[in-house]
């Protein structure tokens, strides 16, 4: 997973695929937000329709990504790498 994390001018970036059968609903969105809140890093979730704060469930929901959207996670801060790894784990968990 580490090799997928890229260094960009805006911080560390990781591409993830939504791959959720029924789209992103309150429960998964809440899980993501809760995980993101554990880190000090600023984390953005970026899709075609815009970029939002990954620590806000409402923000994530309002992004309303479709079922197999490509998302970009962008983290900046001391624990940015851990944050991206943590969030990626949540995504893999939910896809199962």
């Amino acid at each position, binding site marked *: 997973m580490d090799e997928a994390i890229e260094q960009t001018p805006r911080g560390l970036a990781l591409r993830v695929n939504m791959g959720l059968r029924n789209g992103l*609903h309150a*429960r998964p969105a809440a899980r993501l937000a809760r995980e993101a809140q554990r880190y000090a890093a600023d984390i953005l979730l970026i899709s075609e329709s815009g970029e939002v704060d990954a620590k*806000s469930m409402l923000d994530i*929901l309002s992004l*309303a990504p479709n079922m197999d959207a490509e998302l970009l996670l962008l983290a900046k801060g001391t624990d940015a790498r851990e944050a991206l790894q943590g969030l990626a784990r949540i995504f893999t968990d939910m896809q199962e």
Partner: protein
Amino acid sequence: MARAVLFGTPVSPGIAIGRACLAHASVQDEERYISEEEVAGEQDALRAAAEHVCTVLATTLENVPDDLAEYGDVIAAQMEIARDPKLIKGALARIAHKHICAAWALKLTVDELCALFRDMEEPYLRDRAQDIRAVGLRLREYLCVGPEYKNAADKNGVLVAEDLSPADVMELNLNHVQGILTAEGGPTSHTAILSRGLRIPCLSDVTGLMAGAHENEPLIVDGLNGYVLLGPNEEDMARYSAQRREYNHWESVTRKTAQWPAEMCDGVRVLVQANLESAVELSSFTENGADGVGLYRTEFAYFKKRLPREEDLLAEYHTVAQTLAPRPVIFRTLDVGADKMLRAQAALNEPNPALGLRGIRFCLRHQGMFRTQLRALMRAGVNGNVSVMLPMLTNLQELRQTRRILLELHQELAAQNLPHAAHLPLGVMIETPAAALICDALARECDFFSIGTNDLVHYLMAIDRNNRHVAYLNEPLHPAVVRTLKHVIDAAHQEGISVSVCGELASDPFVLALLLGMGVDAVSASLRFVPGMKHLIRQFSSRECMELADRVLLNTDVNASKRLLREKLHQLLGRELAFHTVNCGSHPLRDAQ
């Protein structure tokens, strides 16, 4: 306070006399500009409120019983909203930039977020606006009342609320509540189901409730006729106290006799069955003495975040069928549309979903979903008395197609070596004029009929259930309706199959007498009404009902039919008539009071 009457939908019968207590502290919309020095204080207040609401919700979440797991999801989502940076930081920023008080900043932020979600295309996300509003209300309540803020947990008057969210229902100790009034809701809301289970008189959709009812002012809830009396005078109090005493006495009598069969004076027996919304209601099933389930609504499982799997459905159906065996349980296959919609359906964006792809039409179009449900039903049929009923049927092909699918599934299950019931009784719900007119042909190819009166009346009278302007046409005693009922019942009996009536109308004494007179085999209504209906049936005789039905059938005048029924029922039942919820022609009959 002036004496006034408000009207609502009676969702749980009974009479309550008490003082109003508002479930939510009346939140005054404080809109105040503040000075630079106050900013930090207001921000702290908001943070404290958010933290407090989170803690309260967390405690509530722990106490959610297993059978109400779907409440848990809603509460968890609300908790997340209460600490959402978008909401909280948004409001904090507003306090600092605009120099306004916390409550006002919060209101603006909540309104903005709600507007954002309400405009979304996905119905699921649109509905989240409700959660945001509910959390906003709680936060503002805390800001207004301060740390002493407590929920109406131990109030014991008549609970008054805009609406009760699952979290509210969980936190309230409803056992001490005498009555419930909500400005929104409806007869199938959780509050309605719960209040019926706890035997608390309840009205929903009360117009002008929040403006009219004030904390601690006396009021009377008439859950039989569907109104609230605000500021009653002494005469009202005396009259309703007496009526409440009589009603409670009558109710305890019906409960004691609930296990007796519903046998008329001259020995004719009918089945009185229950309509169930979900397995949650099973716990109070036996004490109400229902002879099985005449209508099990299977939609509940489909309104979760993902579609149910066959095993989920099997577990639910198996529990219901096995718990109630050997009593029969009639499962209605998925009927979404009109008032409740799945996402696949909402995507069609039909201008008039009540006349659109719903019921069996939807199931035959989305056969994957339909087959999963039928497989679960066939497998549950091994350990119980399971029947299957098809909603919204309009032609023979739909019935034949379903039979073919059942046959295929039987072969499939046999090949997989899964135990299942190969030949479940298959019934048709008669709720469209088309089905009613070809019922002779349908009767030859299915195993039973069940008449869904609610939809049948709407379709026969060509009225939209949500359109208040034509609500006056919702008239079950209209000759068109009465003749159709007779035609369907006769056609069923001619082919030797049974026919039941499963709309809420069956609990209406006027319609019940008429149906008995036409020779219906079973009636089915909310569990709450079953003991009362049985008690009622035991006072009728089939001969009297038949005469009554004959005279009503000859009538072309609705009002004459009503007069006839009212006279006869008064003569038979006397005072008891007032204890039954009268849905039938609810408007004109109300003035008979």
